[in-house]
């Protein structure tokens, strides 16, 4: 996180659900972004962390991404202040 006064708008909230939360060891984090970006760019940055991050989020893994509670694709735009959630395949009902 940068120390600039527009801190609140220069981060994206990441959320990890269910199996992903357990595998990654965290339920959410504040993720710094330089400006508008995409779901794919954020996912790529997380994969670069290696370990569980690359294992769980690698392309080909059945992970869905939602931006502000709407299902998204890799090219979906993400702006500072948005909430980006990583979801395993759903199993309710």
């Amino acid at each position, binding site marked *: 996180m940068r120390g600039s006064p527009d801190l609140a708008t220069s981060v994206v909230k990441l959320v990890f659900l269910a199996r992903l939360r357990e595998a990654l060891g965290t339920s959410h984090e504040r993720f710094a972004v330089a400006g508008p970006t995409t779901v794919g760019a954020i996912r790529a940055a997380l994969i670069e962390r290696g370990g569980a991050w690359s294992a769980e989020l690698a392309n080909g893994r059945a992970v869905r991404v939602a931006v502000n509670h709407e299902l998204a*694709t890799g090219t979906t735009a993400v702006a500072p202040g948005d909430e980006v959630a990583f979801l395993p395949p759903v199993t309710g009902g």
Partner: protein
Amino acid sequence: MGVRIQEAPFDAQAEADALREGDFDVGAVVTFTGTVRDVNDGDAVGTLTLEHYPGMTEKALEAIVDEARERFDVRRILVIHRVGTLAPGDPIVLVAVTGAHRGEAFDACRFVMDYLKTRAPFWKKERTPSGDRWVDARASDDEAARRWGGDSSADGP
């Protein structure tokens, strides 16, 4: 019509009665109740813990109900989904649909369940004798949802 997510049990009959209350154009009431089975994929299930994504899950359920109302000529639709820890025999989910005629009410109820199974952000974790495990999504659920002919782009890339 409505969507509720709650830890508490529900009274399916009271809910269905309330749904058709005062609506004398209703000739058909279809309910689906999903319950916790004591065996899954061959293993005994002790308890089941259901997790959701507050905010998104409600929106997803409302979108499913809206789509059902658009596709089928029904009167009212109610969805109640429980979260938290449940035991075998406990009800998990209720979908109740009222309509003038049975065909559309059956279709709408089944449609909501099929879409809920594949699109609503809920996750189940089972406690079994060999430890806790997250339940895997079923290919049969994807097939059930595809049978309605909707787009599958929601699956993402």
